[in-house]
């Protein structure tokens, strides 16, 4: 509508290219002009125009600036480069921060080197899956920040290109930067559309104004001619020329109208005086105070006096009284006189005497005495002059002034006090007409100046050029407008102009500040009040537009803040005025207002709230629109949601940081809370259906068979349930954080928010997240094992990096769980159970992977044999698993199990909580057992691997006999080395376990060797050697206590011992075995034998006494029995008698009563395991085939060595027995010696005895 807009744009487009040379000069000059109020010569205008032409020239002819373009490009590129570098720095620093944080949280600082090294690589497996969640928001925030900075920088760049340097504008109280043309064009377009109907009316106004524009112009010329006040620095001609320009009056018309003006009568002028207050007046009364009043008059007309009221007993009176003195003498030599008097009331002497008690000081007493004297003598009272001030009229500016004047008194040097007055000129013009004139004039001048100065929108804040101001001041003075009237006029004019060319809001807030009081005290007529509200209605849409567009990009934060502050001030003032029954917010202009009350809507806070919500809504919709793409995948939709929520959060953050305090301070409006309430509803409606739907359609994650396959390739990330679940989790976290923000922001309303129960939307997703967490953990574990160098992480620690990594991974799962922070207790309980179960799965998986990793280590093969050495790696693997197992329980406690159970007990019952506790404990102990089994499995693998070597060495040792002591040494060394490796590396528990396994294995191996070699009928020395080896090993590696537990080993040793004996010894063993068995038997059918024995020196005395209940061998029911005595071991008693008793026929109770003395050599007598065998037989008729009845043994060690006679010894009674078993080891060993005649004979006889 105004050419100014176009030219401003033109100016800008030029200035981009050629700013420095022209625009700066131009602006500098005009600013300087304004500031210094220098006399403007007529030629100035021409100069300005010339410059404008010069500016537009390069645009017309494009050739002029081509050389500048490359330079600018280079500059831009440079800036971009710098920016990138800066971003990189930011990113780097973020990275460093993350790293630092990770290290800080690590609980094993000792091992951080290895840890961080390998862990970083483990992260690479899944792109830092777990790390991402922890730093998700920081990252996003950084990203957003960088982005923002980028944008800001761009803006600043642009601004720098088009903004004049501000250095010269010191007295311009607007410090904001002019805003970018594009955004403002949009803005003003918006405000234009907001005020369509207003524009129509505005046009009408203009036309109406045009009708009497000549008249107005004449009035202005008239005013210039009749200049009042002191401001005559600007020549009349300059003012004429300025007015002509502003009103666009052609020269001829100007002359005509000038004549008209000159012919007009002089104006009737008044001087308006407001006596405001006085201070520090001299006291004139006895009480140290005065009762001052002011008298004022014009020097030219001293008889015409005006008095103020008397303010009693004060030295600092406040009057605030108005007077209008007509100026009769037009010369400017006249002056205004002010006299301050002390009023002396008509008191009697008596009354005055009564004051004696109020007298202050000697001076006061003197005054009182004087007063009393005067009153007493004259009977009069006299007012006393305090002081006088003289104000020449030519010192008063046309715009009027407020000043302190000091009071003088003739012949007095001392200060009499100061008085404050406001003086201004006015005319006796019709006030209504004058106001209207003033409004038109102001509007025209303002538009003129706006066009002239090309000031940016929202920039102009009430500073006219000197000429403009002069004209307005003159008009005000000469029309006699009061300050309030002028302010009102200005307000309404500015509000009107503001609709099309936005002015600074500071202008309005200041104006309102001045207007509020008069409007409140209702000293203003109804019509003017109406005018005020009309203007306010024009102003308000732009105010709310600022509120709504608070997020607008392209302005500096400071500028926005400034604007918002001013707008809020405006709203505050309007709020103070308590508009009633005024339709402030017509629904056609404010379609977004949700006012539901009756009558006209003038609810400012309500509208503010709506504007805030609406602004947020517009912004949000804009974001959504811009991000929406057709055919979006679920993943992309989730990403959008995350981004949206983050943007909303940062918006809220900004609101809290910057705006909230402003809103509360200025208009008592909880901005952030209002925003939050809006956002929470919006986010809930946006997210809930989306999330619920996605949760329903989540694809299953297949990883059940993961254990031995490699990670699936994520060929299509869009289809990947992993990234979908992850994104969903990010949404969850984003919403969670948003909700937390709300809890702090609106604690009272929080419970009513729909978003409070957001976790329910995600219900279906949790299982998926747990699966993902496990899946990721499994992949990481695999990687950790792969990367493990199998060296100690530290000399003090007996495990390697993968154990540390595995644990880290568990703690990452824990962190994941903490982040989930699931609000539902029942859910928490089951999810914890699931997590424990999953961690157990991971443990077992880790154990498997670890076992596979070390498999084959320590194996070696040369030409002759396969070897295995226990390696550190094996031990580490076992330790690793054990370490992980040990941490399982503390880990599960860390999950917050007790807390959850406590809560469960609260909301359910302690009994149910206990059941849940049992379940969790069961799951935990189950997990620990499972892993322990896994360890045992590994230990067995190790022991089994040692088996073949031990077996080979054992056999060799036995085969080579005495020459092969080397081999035994080798075996010993082998076992020794391996066991000491194990002992050094494993913890005690596991070492003892493996020791046990090894010994079990060893006896198994031995048994096996014995069995196969028995079958091979190896000679006794073979077994003897074997036994020797075994004993050696037993002696060196096992303490006897342990060995005693080891039955298997003892049995093995026994077998070896037996098989290592020569046949004769073996046979003797058989007899000993028989003796032992017989001694235990009771009540045999064969009868009982009684005897006495003793050693006397080396001779053995045996008395066979009798037998009872002998087995009946003969057909007559009786036996013909005799007893033969043998001594064993047979081969040691060769040549020794085998005495026998006489035969006692046909009796089952024979009385033998025979004593034998067998002489032995000392050696024989001292055989420890020597035996006496009493063999009872039935005499055959022919004497060839004596039948065997039974036998009894007596051990040498049971025979007393005594000198006392046999008869003094007790009888020994033994049951007669027959051998019953061939299943003893000794007999079995004898049976294997089939080529041995001795053994064969023995066995034959033995079996005969069994059979008979």
């Amino acid at each position, binding site marked *: 509508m105004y050419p100014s807009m176009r030219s401003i744009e033109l100016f800008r487009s030029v200035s981009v290219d050629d700013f420095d040379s022209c625009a700066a000069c131009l602006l500098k000059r005009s600013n300087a002009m304004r500031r210094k109020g220098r006399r403007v010569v007529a030629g100035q205008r021409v100069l300005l125009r010339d410059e404008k032409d010069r500016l537009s020239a390069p645009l017309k002819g494009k050739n002029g600036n081509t050389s500048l373009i490359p330079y600018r490009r280079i500059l831009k590129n440079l800036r971009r480069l710098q920016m990138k570098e800066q971003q990189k720095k930011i990113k780097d620093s973020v990275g460093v921060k993350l790293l630092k944080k990770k290290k800080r949280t690590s609980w094993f600082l000792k091992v951080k080197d290895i840890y961080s090294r390998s862990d970083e690589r483990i992260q690479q497996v899944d792109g830092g899956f777990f790390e991402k969640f922890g730093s998700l928001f920081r990252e996003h925030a950084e990203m957003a920040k960088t982005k923002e900075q980028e944008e800001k920088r761009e803006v600043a760049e642009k601004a720098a290109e088009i903004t004049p340097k501000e250095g010269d504008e010191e007295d311009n109280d607007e410090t904001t930067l002019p805003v970018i043309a594009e955004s403002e064009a949009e803005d003003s377009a918006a405000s234009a559309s907001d005020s369509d109907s207003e524009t129509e009316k505005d046009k009408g106004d203009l036309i109406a104004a045009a009708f009497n524009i000549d008249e107005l112009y004449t009035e202005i010329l008239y005013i210039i001619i009749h200049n009042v006040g002191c401001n005559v620095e600007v020549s009349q001609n300059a003012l004429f020329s300025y007015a002509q320009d502003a009103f666009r009056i052609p020269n001829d018309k100007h002359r005509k109208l000038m004549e008209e003006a000159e012919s007009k009568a002089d104006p009737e002028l008044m001087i308006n005086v407001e006596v405001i207050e006085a201070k520090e007046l001299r006291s004139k009364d006895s009480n140290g105070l005065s009762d001052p009043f002011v008298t004022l008059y014009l020097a030219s007309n001293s008889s015409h006096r005006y008095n103020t009221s008397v303010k009693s007993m004060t030295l600092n009176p406040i009057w605030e009284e108005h007077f209008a003195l007509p100026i009769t003498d037009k010369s400017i030599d006249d002056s205004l006189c002010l006299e301050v008097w002390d009023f002396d009331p008509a008191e009697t002497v008596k009354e005055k005497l009564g004051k004696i008690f109020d007298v202050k000081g000697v001076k006061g007493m003197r005054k009182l005495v004087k007063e009393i004297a005067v009153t007493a003598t004259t009977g009069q009272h006299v007012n006393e002059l305090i002081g006088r001030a003289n104000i020449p009229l030519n010192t008063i500016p046309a715009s009027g002034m407020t000043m302190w004047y000091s009071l003088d008194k003739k012949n007095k040097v001392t200060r009499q006090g100061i008085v404050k007055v406001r003086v201004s000129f006015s005319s006796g013009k019709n006030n209504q007409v004058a106001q209207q004139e003033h409004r038109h004039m102001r509007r025209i001048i303002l538009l003129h100046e706006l066009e002239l100065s090309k000031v940016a929108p929202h920039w102009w804040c009430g500073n006219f050029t000197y000429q403009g101001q002069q004209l307005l001041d003159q008009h005000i003075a000469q029309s006699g407008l009061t300050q309030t009237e002028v302010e009102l006029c200005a307000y309404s004019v500015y509000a009107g102009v503001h609709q099309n060319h936005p002015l600074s809001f500071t202008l309005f807030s200041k104006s309102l500040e001045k207007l509020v009081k008069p409007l409140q005290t209702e000293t203003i007529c109804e019509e003017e009040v109406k005018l005020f509200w009309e203007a306010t209605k024009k102003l308000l849409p732009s105010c709310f537009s600022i509120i709504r567009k608070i997020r607008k990009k392209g302005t500096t934060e400071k500028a926005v803040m400034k604007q918002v502050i001013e707008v809020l001030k405006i709203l505050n003032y309007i709020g103070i005025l308590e508009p009633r029954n005024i339709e402030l917010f017509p629904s056609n202009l404010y379609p977004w207002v949700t006012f539901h009350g009756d009558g006209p809507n003038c609810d400012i806070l309500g509208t503010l709230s709506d504007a805030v919500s609406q602004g947020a809504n517009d912004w949000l919709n804009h974001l959504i629109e811009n991000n929406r793409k057709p055919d979006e995948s679920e993943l992309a939709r989730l990403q959008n949601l995350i981004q949206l929520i983050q943007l909303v959060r940062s918006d809220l953050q900004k609101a809290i940081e910057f705006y909230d305090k402003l809103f509360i301070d200025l208009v008592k409006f909880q901005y952030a809370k209002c925003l939050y309430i809006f956002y929470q509803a919006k986010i809930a409606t946006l997210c809930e259906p989306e999330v619920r739907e996605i949760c329903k359609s989540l694809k299953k994650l297949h990883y059940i068979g993961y254990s031995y396959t490699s990670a699936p390739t994520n060929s299509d990330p869009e289809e990947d349930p992993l990234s979908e679940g992850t994104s969903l989790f990010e949404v969850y976290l984003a919403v969670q954080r948003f909700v937390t923000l709300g809890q702090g922001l609106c604690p009272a309303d929080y419970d009513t928010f729909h978003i409070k129960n957001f976790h329910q939307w995600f219900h279906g997703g949790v299982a998926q997240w747990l699966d993902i967490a496990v899946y990721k953990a499994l992949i990481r574990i695999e990687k950790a094992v792969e990367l493990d160098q199998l060296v100690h992480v530290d000399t003090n620690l007996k495990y390697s990096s993968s154990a540390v990594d595995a644990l880290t991974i568990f703690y990452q799962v824990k962190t994941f769980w903490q982040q989930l922070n699931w609000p539902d207790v029942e859910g928490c309980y089951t999810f914890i159970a699931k997590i424990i179960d999953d961690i157990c799965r991971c443990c077992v998986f880790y154990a498997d992977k670890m076992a596979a990793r070390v498999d084959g280590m320590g194996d070696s093969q040369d030409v002759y044999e396969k070897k295995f050495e226990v390696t550190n790696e094996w031990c580490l693997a076992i330790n690793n698993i054990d370490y992980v197992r040990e941490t399982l329980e503390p880990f599960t406690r860390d999950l917050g199990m007790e807390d959850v159970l406590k809560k469960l007990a609260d909301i359910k019952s302690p009994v149910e909580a206990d059941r849940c506790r049992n379940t969790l404990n069961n799951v935990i102990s189950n997990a620990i057992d499972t892993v322990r*089994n896994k360890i045992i499995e590994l230990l067995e693998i190790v022991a089994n691997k040692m088996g073949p070597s031990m077996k080979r060495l054992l056999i060799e040792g036995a085969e080579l006999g005495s020459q092969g002591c080397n081999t035994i040494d080798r075996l010993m060394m082998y076992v020794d080395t391996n066991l000491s490796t194990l002992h050094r590396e494993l913890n005690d528990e596991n070492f003892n376990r493996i020791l046990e396994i090894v010994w079990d294995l060893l006896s198994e191996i031995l048994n096996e060797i014995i069995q196969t070699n028995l079958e091979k009928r190896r000679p006794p020395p073979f077994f003897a050697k074997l036994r020797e080896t075994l004993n050696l090993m037993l002696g060196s590696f096992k303490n006897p206590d342990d060995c005693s537990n080891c039955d298997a080993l003892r049995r093995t040793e026994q077998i070896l011992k037996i098989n290592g004996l020569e046949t004769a010894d073996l046979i003797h063993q058989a007899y000993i075995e028989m003796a032992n068995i017989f001694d235990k038997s009771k009540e045999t059918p064969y009868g009982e034998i009684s005897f006495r024995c003793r050693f006397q020196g080396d001779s053995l005395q045996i008395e066979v006494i009798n037998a009872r209940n002998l087995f009946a061998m003969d057909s007559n029911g009786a036996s013909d029995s005799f007893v033969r005595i043998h001594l064993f071991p047979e081969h040691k008693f060769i040549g020794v008698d085998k005495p026998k008793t006489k035969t006692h026929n046909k009796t089952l109770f024979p009385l033998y009563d025979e004593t034998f003395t067998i002489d032995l050599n000392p050696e024989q007598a001292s055989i420890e395991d020597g035996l006496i065998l009493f063999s009872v037989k039935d005499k055959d008729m022919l004497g060839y085939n004596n039948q065997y009845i039974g036998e009894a043994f007596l051990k040498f060690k049971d025979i007393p060595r005594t000198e006392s006679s046999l008869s003094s010894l007790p009888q020994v009674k033994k049951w007669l027995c027959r051998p019953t078993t061939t299943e003893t080891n000794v007999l079995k060993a004898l049976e294997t010696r089939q080529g041995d005649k001795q053994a064969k004979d023995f066995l034959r006889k033995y079996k005969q005895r069994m059979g008979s």
Partner: protein
Amino acid sequence: MRSTTKNTLLKVVILGDGGVGKSCLMNRFVSNQFDEHSFHTIGVEFLNKDIEIDGETYTLQIWDTAGQERFKTLRTPFYRGSDICILTYAVDDKTSFKNLDMWRKEFANYADVKENNQVPFIVVGNKSDVPTEEREVSPLEMETWCNDNGITSCIETSAKSASNVQEAFKMAVQHWLKLESRADKSETVINDTVDLSKKQTENRTSCCIGSSDDK
């Protein structure tokens, strides 16, 4: 300290409508107790129990689940890696019987059982102690349903009177053994270098690595 015999671990999941007596069944089996007024299960419950079949000891890790709909998301994560699924209904509750189909599907969906593998389902009709006039599902109906759905093992139990409870779990294990041996056979046919002795230790001693046929 060291377990001398290594047991085979089997993960068992008990499913069925709320109130059919899943927890009672488990408690009867594990601790031979019966509580007429037991609470609703919250999400899941877990107990261990050894059972001996043909001289071999099996450790059953029994996951008892909550039947109520609202617990669905809480119980389904536990299906994965199950060896046996016991579908439970109450013989005096026709609806719970009709819902077996739903449970079967839910399990198959969340347990991540591969298509060609047979799911080791067994069907248990609990509360067989109720008087005949209160009975709504006959054994015949149960058998028919099982036949229609390819489930070969079904049994009626009473956790209250302790009848058939041990048998039911025994049956479940035997059923699993049958499937297992079949799987073994098919595996041996395909890959004749499979180390059968290794098989037992590698796949069946873990509590949670999936079923044995995931190799």
